[in-house]
């Protein structure tokens, strides 16, 4: 009876759980093993004899070296970092202000504006990239980091506003009122009393915004053209594939190194990230 229950648990719980884990993580393992494997082992036909694709006894840093020394990868890393930080900063400022106004101040059209921002939250980048490319050209912003620093907030602000609104609503109104009785202005009450309490929410929004802008692809693909301006995702796609030739070792090295910054930030703030993710869904 007890034995049976244990096997049932293995069958209904551990096997499916491990199945999910292996399927979800295998591509990352594959990325890592490809990165450190010499070319001679990589390009062996899939049905070659005595060939174990999952392990190598001759690890090499050749691909990473090629990536860092012979491509503009480090430039792309800096570009991506700069663009992500700048657009996150802009979006957080705007999102925190807007979220505060919409959740804690009384004025006409507050509801309509909140709904409006929510609707823009749902607009996918692929709906607007063609006219936006035209506008970026007209503003003379094409092929500069500004084209992304200014457009990324279009999908980051709505989301941070929405998240912050939910967060601000949970803070009691009396706090500001007390501060204002003590002589604080509205601005001071917001900056010194409410924002410090809202730091966890701001952190969640910030981490989420940073990873979103690090991962953005289509705007970066369309708005940037010269190699030195590209971000990691676009650089890896367009510069490491020459014609029909894929340099898989270097490509996987690029994918791996390009993912590390997000992965590190994520690992430090998993709880905040998950709070941002679920908060953005629940509102």
């Amino acid at each position, binding site marked *: 009876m007890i034995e049976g229950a244990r096997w049932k648990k293995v069958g209904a*719980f551990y096997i*499916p759980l491990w199945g999910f884990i292996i399927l*979800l993580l295998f*591509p*990352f393992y*594959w*990325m890592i093993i*490809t990165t450190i494997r010499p070319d001679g082992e990589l*390009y062996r036909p*899939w*049905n070659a004899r005595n060939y174990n694709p999952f392990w190598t006894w001759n690890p090499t840093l050749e691909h990473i070296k090629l990536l860092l020394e012979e491509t503009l990868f480090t430039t792309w890393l800096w570009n991506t970092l700069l663009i992500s930080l700048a657009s996150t900063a802009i979006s957080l400022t*705007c*999102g925190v*202000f*807007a979220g505060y106004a*919409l959740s804690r*101040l009384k*004025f006409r059209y*507050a509801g309509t504006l*909140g709904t409006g921002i*929510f609707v*823009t939250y*749902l607009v*996918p*980048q*692929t*709906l*607007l*990239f*063609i*006219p936006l490319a035209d506008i970026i050209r007209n503003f003379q912003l094409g092929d500069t980091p500004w084209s992304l620093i*200014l*457009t990324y*907030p*279009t999908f980051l*602000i709505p989301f941070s506003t929405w998240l912050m609104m939910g967060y601000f*609503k949970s803070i009691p109104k*009396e706090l500001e*009122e*007390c501060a204002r*009785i003590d002589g604080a*202005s*509205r*601005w001071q009450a917001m900056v010194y009393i409410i924002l410090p309490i809202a730091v966890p929410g701001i952190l969640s929004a910030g981490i989420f915004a940073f990873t979103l802008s690090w*991962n953005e*692809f289509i705007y970066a693909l369309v708005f940037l053209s010269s190699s030195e301006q590209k971000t990691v995702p*676009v650089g*890896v*796609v367009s510069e490491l594939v020459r014609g029909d030739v894929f340099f898989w070792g270097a490509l*996987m090295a690029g*994918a791996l190194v390009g993912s590390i910054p997000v*992965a590190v930030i*994520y*690992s430090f703030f998993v709880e905040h*990230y*998950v709070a941002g*993710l*679920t908060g953005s*869904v629940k*509102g």
Partner: protein
Amino acid sequence: MASASTATIAISTRQHSKTGLLEDERWFAAALLFPTAVLLGLFIAYPFFQGIWLSLTNTRVGVPGEFVGLRNFIKVWNDDIFRTAVWNTCWYTFVTTVFKLILGLWLANLLNRHFKGKAWVRAFILLPFIIPTVLSTFAWKWMFDPTFSVLNWILYHLGIITKRINWLGEPDLAFTSIIVVNIWRGLPFYAISLLAGLQTISPELQEAAAIDGANAWQRFRHITWPLLLPVTMVVTLFSVIQTFADFQLVYVLTGGGPANATHLFATYAYQIGVGTGLLSEGAAISLAIFPVLFVVVLVQLLYIRRVETR
């Protein structure tokens, strides 16, 4: 406590008469909303109307166009590749959503149990969702490689296949591969969001039902599912929009090929609008995303309304 705080409100409204525009609630709100309004107006509202205008002209890159009415839309409608893209996009959205929902629910239920290393598993499982999609899709492209595919190696050594499978080389198979990668990428988002929903459901309800003799399926059907429905709704609607407007997966895996068989709206719009420079036609194609977006937003708003009452 409650009476004390109402008293302070009464005092605050009477005594507070600071000068300055920002002390007025409406002006303060306007000032706080101003930067957001400028950015969203400039880079969402303006391009939206610009997109509609573009789609009604014959603009190309570098060539200012003239008004041509609905000619682009008629041309697009009679375009076989566009029709394939319509069908692909709908099918893609439908299939992946069903799978992500079912598998996500399953995974969320597994993660809702207590076991050793739960926090680690939960953190690692989100990786496909947080790693830049383009980069992880390249890992898949490498796994689907016609000559060096590790998937072929596995299937061959398990004795399932004897000849290689050209994963991205044939239209139907390529599209299935794309669907698999989308499910792989989106599943963690469903699982973690649904898990958050599950955790708000009190285990006592389950226990009470179990004592009353409800089996596992009945408990899921009559307790978990109804309570989880709001979260499920929102998660699904979000994901439907993202999937419907997807670009990166197809762009990296097949670029719309072979023979334009795997295009979605966004990749086809890119090919026409950016690849060949027919801005107006490209704009018309990407506007095709709009009706679906509109319906989803409408459903969403009707749903959100009750949350938003303040």
